[in-house]
């Protein structure tokens, strides 16, 4: 267990939450996700970065341009020219602004007097314009988490970026459906000091956001970015954590990575290591190679890291080595990866080739050689960038933006963007915040609601929280007054969860369907045990009517009570005739249920009822 406070760990979280508005932030398109297969139009663009007044292109922006990728966009019958950057934006969606103000109030923030939309340069293609529109709406708030006050620095309203569909190296395919969905971005102060606290703060913020009832739910509708630093390390921004479950692990692994890099730095210093600032063409060394990757390549180049032997292959996060960091860079340039001498000979590269390679670049046994293969200019640019990164190994931890992997580790994405890459979005007028706009009603928090449910309906804490956090909590409250709360919870939560486990698509179940099932139970037309079956029918046919549902399962539950009643009435008859009572009784049941219930089912049920009666 790490002592995080002694390491000087500081963590800040940025939460991006999609708002559930009728239309997008700058146009009247709906805020719905589409299947890329449904795309009805496709186009492509390139992006260029602009020199700033200081005569310099933003560091992050420049690296993207050096890659000169082609961005392919998929459009739909639910997207318009605004998303395609073919029409000026409409005015800011007031509904989205109002939700943002509500969130600001819930986070105890101060709202600005006038909201100014900005253009934040982002040229990875995820915005067709080459910038993301974003506005600072509120600042300087706080929440209390486990008794500790965590500062909320800023709340911004911005447009969601495109959804990335495919990365083909020098081409990236994006989907326009997500572009322009309103997004609230909450940035905390770096007040968080442990992995667990990071997870708890993110959970709390998520809970507050859902309490508004005005945000989108489901995978991908909320994303966390995490800023992490330790003493002597560097600020690293980790992007796109899609699930809370791994947030603590992300922090833990990043601390581990920074500590490992610091250890590598110390070792390199001790060894007197250095990086040779030169890219060697080694294509001929591999003229007869058995490595398929190298054989395919137009050109093979190498760089030499003096005194790095053994360290390139050193693990810095579970399953990731220093070499993996270099490979990440290669991937951002559109290459598959790199080879390095700590792992060679392997992958079809022979011992002789490694020796020839070492000889060519003048590397001894204590040195490491990095090899990249592919198109000449791309390989050159990649290796120049890796030289820069390797040199930084002697300085410590580079500031950078990284991408969260599913296992909690992270991969290099791009350098940390400079702060100064914003300019006004002149196509969108500023919005003055009026006193009326600030008059918002603060909704009950989900955690408060859960406490209320535990008390009022005597539910377990867990189930009460699930109900309070449900998008259908108002249905729960409405019906828990009329039928047992546990039954309502079964309909709204437990039963659908079980159906999902059985591979049934429950996404089609909306308020209308849940209400129908709850009413059927309330009206006594189906037994509470019939809820699962009723939901299943609605999953298959969301348009099914109440009568259809009762027809399909109602008879079955009637059958149960009919048989129970009959067996009770004919108790003596059964005792007398034993198993032979079946035939005459079957006749009585079928008289009632012929055509409604399968005879086989009737026989089975009756048989079971007679048997249990005889046993008793």
């Amino acid at each position, binding site marked *: 267990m790490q002592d995080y406070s002694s390491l000087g760990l500081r963590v800040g979280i940025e939460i991006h939450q999609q708002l559930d508005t009728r239309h997008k932030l700058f146009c009247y398109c709906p805020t719905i996700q589409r299947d890329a297969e449904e795309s009805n139009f496709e186009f492509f663009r390139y992006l260029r970065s*602009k020199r700033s*007044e200081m005569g310099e292109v933003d560091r992050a922006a420049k690296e993207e341009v050096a890659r000169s990728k082609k961005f392919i966009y998929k459009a739909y019958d639910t997207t318009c*020219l605004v998303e395609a950057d073919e029409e*000026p934006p409409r005015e800011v969606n007031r509904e989205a602004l109002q939700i943002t103000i509500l969130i600001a109030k819930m986070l105890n923030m*101060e709202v*600005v007097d006038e909201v100014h939309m900005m253009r934040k340069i982002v040229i990875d293609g995820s915005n067709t314009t080459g*910038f993301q529109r974003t506005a*600072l709406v509120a600042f300087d708030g706080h929440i209390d988490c486990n008794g500790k006050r965590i500062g909320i620095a800023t709340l911004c309203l911005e447009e969601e970026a495109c959804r990335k569909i495919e990365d083909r190296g020098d081409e990236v395919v994006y989907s326009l459906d997500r572009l322009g969905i309103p997004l609230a971005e909450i940035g905390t102060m770096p007040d968080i000091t442990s992995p667990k606290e990071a997870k708890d703060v993110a959970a709390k913020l998520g809970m507050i956001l859902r309490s508004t009832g005005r945000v989108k739910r489901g995978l991908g509708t909320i994303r966390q970015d995490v800023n992490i630093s330790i003493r002597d390390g560097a600020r690293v921004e980790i992007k796109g954590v899609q699930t809370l479950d791994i947030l603590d692990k992300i922090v833990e692994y990043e601390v581990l990575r920074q500590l490992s890099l610091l250890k590598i730095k110390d070792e390199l210093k001790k060894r007197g290591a250095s990086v040779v600032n030169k890219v060697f063409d080694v294509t001929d060394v591999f003229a007869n190679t058995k490595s398929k990757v190298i054989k395919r390549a137009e050109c093979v180049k190498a760089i030499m890291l003096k005194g790095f032997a053994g360290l390139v292959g050193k693990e810095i996060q579970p399953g990731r080595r220093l070499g993996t960091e270099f490979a990440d860079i290669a991937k951002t340039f559109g290459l598959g990866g790199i080879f390095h001498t700590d792992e060679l000979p392997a992958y079809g590269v022979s011992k002789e080739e490694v020796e020839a390679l070492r000889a060519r670049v003048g590397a001894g046994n204590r040195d490491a050689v990095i090899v990249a293969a592919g198109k000449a200019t791309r390989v050159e640019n990649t290796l120049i960038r890796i030289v820069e990164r390797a040199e930084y190994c002697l300085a410590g931890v580079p500031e950078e933006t990284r991408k969260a992997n599913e296992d909690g580790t992270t991969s290099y994405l791009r350098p940390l963007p400079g702060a100064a890459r914003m300019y006004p979005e002149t196509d969108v007028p500023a919005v003055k915040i009026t006193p009326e706009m600030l008059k918002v009603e603060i909704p009950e928090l989900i955690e408060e609601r859960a406490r209320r449910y535990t008390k009022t309906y005597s539910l377990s804490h867990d189930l009460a929280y699930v109900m309070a956090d449900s998008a259908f909590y108002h249905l729960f409250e409405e019906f828990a007054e009329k039928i047992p709360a546990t039954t309502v919870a079964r309909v709204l939560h437990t039963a659908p969860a079980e159906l999902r486990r059985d591979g049934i698509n429950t996404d089609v179940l909306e308020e209308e369907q849940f209400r129908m099932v709850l009413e059927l139970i309330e009206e006594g037309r189906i037994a509470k045990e019939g809820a699962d079956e009723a939901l299943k029918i609605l999953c298959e046919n969301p348009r099914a009517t109440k009568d259809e549902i009762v027809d399909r399962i109602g008879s079955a539950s009637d059958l149960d009570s009919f048989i129970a009643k009959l067996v009770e009435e004919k108790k003596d008859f059964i005792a007398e005739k034993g198993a032979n009572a079946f035939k005459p009784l079957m006749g009585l049941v079928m008289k009632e249920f012929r055509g409604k219930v399968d005879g086989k089912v009737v026989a089975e049920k009756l048989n079971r009822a007679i048997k249990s009666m005889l046993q008793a």
Partner: protein
Amino acid sequence: MDVEGKRVRIKAKGRIFEGVAMPSSTNSFVLKLDNGYNVGFTEYELLEVFEEGKHGEEIAALEKKESLPDIKIISTGGTIASKVDYRTGAVTSQFSAEEIVGDVPELAEICNIDAMLLYNILSENMKAKQWIELAGEVYKAIKSGYEGVIITHGTDTMAYTASALAFMLSTPAPVILVGAQRSSDRPSSDAAMNLVCAANAAIADLGEVVVVMHANTSDDTCHIHRGVKVRKCHTSRRDAFQSVNYPPLGLVSYPSGEIKWMAERIKRGERELKLADRLEEKVTLVKFFPGLKPDIMDYYYDRGYRGFVIEGTGLGHVSTDWVDSIARISEDSVVVMTSQCIWGRVCDRVYDTGRYLLEAGVIEGEDMLPEVALIKLMWLLGNYDVEEARSLVNKNLVGEINPTTRYWEVEK
């Protein structure tokens, strides 16, 4: 105290903020915070103003490559290159050759560039005076040996300027008008690609005034449109410019710069360099709509207008109520009929109304665009008497009238 552009410390909402004071179009105080965001405050207290040194910038001088052709870029406004000051958020236009090439480095591989800033005006503020001066500058440039001239222009009235140049200037070299539908300060701007395609057209085997702009919404091809056959047909799309009643002359591929010619064109050196730069400004374009009275024609006529282009309905009609007015006016004026259908040829011999109009003195504008007919008439009346103008207005001079109307597929 004017603090705009200066770094300040203010007190607002009970807190202290530092940042750069920004221009404000409302009465709020707009502050650019160090995180890049602008925010507005209505109540604030200015605590301190910091004096800061100016940032200088050095741009390396361009080297001329002997093997490459020389091209002149004349800017009339709008932006083809721009610079953003992320400190203050200001966007500034760039006009020197060095700055243009700094923004679009590919240009240096295609040609040597000299640049001049002629105007910095919005294209809707262009007048005959500017067209005449511009024609003069282009004439001078070609005369002094440039292989081609590129004119950067706001897109709104680009087609009018193209027509004006086409009639005033007989050119042996390409004269290319180019612009952008997305401002050049944004990474997605179409300015750079349009300019690269324009440069490729400017060194090509071409001898007429053309417009080079995106052929579709993707960044892969530009069309070369004949200047007197092109029209802006969309308010905002990149491919807003369309050739009407004649195919685009060619298709420029990006980034290769290869040109595929698609229609008959005037080639380089086919014509001698000549300038006839007089324009009559008392020429008007009237769009007819149901119920419009002919008073509008009398109004112009009484103010000395002797050139009239009517944008009529369908094949080229106005209400029969107009016949008498037109008969009176056409005695000593030129009255040309075009169609608000935009596509197709005018024919006033199909219906009675048309025949009455012809009798009253209306001249059919053939397949000319209304705006092109307007400019043509300005040029004709500036250089010829009414009689000659009347006889030339329905004759093809620079490709504005085609003898036949064909079907064609436009490759994008």
